[in-house]
């Protein structure tokens, strides 16, 4: 783990608040499991695949490919439809993201910035 990521961790762990702060700084953080090698793009206290707490905070790749995507036309209160939500493969991780444009499965996309929503920040790819 790069020392520069320490600022986003508390008590040696990447918390949700730290993950959000990094995202708002344009830094896409994930966690790599030392035991099963699963890489998650979500803030977790333990590995979702194997339960290990031996997670290192990693910066995720900013280039990836669309794993799946949907154009949302009926939105929750506080969101303006239409918009696109996708699962994006980033190296060993898979990320849930807002996509700035229509896309097909397999398309290449790259990290743009954090989109601000009533539910907090989300990564935007395009």
């Amino acid at each position, binding site marked *: 783990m790069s020392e520069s990521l320490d600022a986003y961790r508390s008590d040696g762990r990447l918390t949700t608040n730290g993950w959000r702060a990094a995202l708002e700084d344009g830094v896409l953080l994930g966690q790599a499991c030392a035991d099963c090698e699963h890489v998650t793009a*979500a803030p977790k206290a333990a590995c979702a695949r194997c339960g290990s707490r031996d997670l290192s905070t990693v910066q995720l790749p900013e280039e990836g490919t669309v794993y799946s995507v949907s154009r949302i036309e*009926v939105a929750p209160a506080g969101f303006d439809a239409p918009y696109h939500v996708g699962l994006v493969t980033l190296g060993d991780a898979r990320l849930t993201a807002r996509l700035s444009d229509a896309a097909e499965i397999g398309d290449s996309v790259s990290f743009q910035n954090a989109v601000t929503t009533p539910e907090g920040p*989300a990564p935007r790819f395009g």
Partner: protein
Amino acid sequence: MTDANVVGVGMTAFGVHGSTLPDLFAEAALPALDDAGATADDVDAFYLGNAMGGQIEGESHLAPTLASHIGLAGVPCQRYEDACATSSNAFKNAVRAVEAGQHDVVLVGGVERCSPETGKETDAMTRIFASAAHGAYERPTGLTFPGVFALLTKRHMHEYGTTPEQLAAVAVKNHRHGSLNPRAHFGSETTVDEVLSGPVVADPFRLHDCCPFSDGAAAAVVASADAAETLSGDPVRVAGVGHATDIVPIADKAHPSATQAARDAAGQAYEAAGVGPDDVDVVELHDCFTGAEVLATEALGLVEDGEGGPAAAAGRTSLGGEIPVNPSGGLKAKGHPIGATGVAQVVELTEQLRGDADSRQVEAADVGLAHNLGGDAATTIVSVLESVPRRDSDQRGEVAR
């Protein structure tokens, strides 16, 4: 360990109701007690499913309120919430308590109001349903519940070539089934063309790919083998219940379109019941969206992986087909009052296994399977129910004495 049996069932019509939650629930619970031949005194405990009464109607502590309302004050009450799998979770825990001999006769029920009659319009209700997604990670992207299943289904279309027409076939089938069910929210049939020309909700889903916002309640009386002998309701045996939880969020699931929790829960339920998918005669499964039914038929082993869409289009899962799926109309046409859905599946299977399902009766239905999914495909509960040979009622009167 004793067998658990469903000995009485009741449910309201699903649709739009102006009643309070207690009154709505009574319309399901009192008929269930009557169907079981049970009085309030017979009931040892109450297991309630209600998913979003807090967010929708500002109600909590509902289990004791409903118990008092229907005359069960005194018994231990517990409310379960597990998103759309809410009342299956109540059912599972009720069955486990009966199997363990901790209670002899329990009431299980679910109730929810989700229609605009609650004062919550589509955008508010869409936000409330999204409360079951990962709060910090999934909700900020604007992911909705149609969106969750849209992502899984789009991937399935990519992997297996599932088509929009095959998805529409699921809606057409379930509307046709629902038209035979007087309790269904939608009583009319639809066509593939009508489905494919509807407004998009979350691509690839159009309006008719999606279940409606419904109000309703469902209830079942679960009894031990001994207690079932003393009650007059025709029993159906709970042969096995499986319950598994997959990873939240969906991005971290190993293979999202496989809906692994359904495979795990089905494996547990089949093993406990000593049956396999080929033994199942009738299925009620969680078709919140047409794509969800395609994924579920595969995960339950009813069809091969990738064959869910073609099977629906070919009529294999229709009433009269090789494995009828959702004869009630399913969530799609019967309706989906969230917390009532799991128990409503049990109600439908009980009627099917008793041979009481009228024009939607599946022939020779001896083994039924219910599949109820909650959250972003993270939770699944699968129950296998089996018919019990009808006892002669005169003889039974004597056995009970």
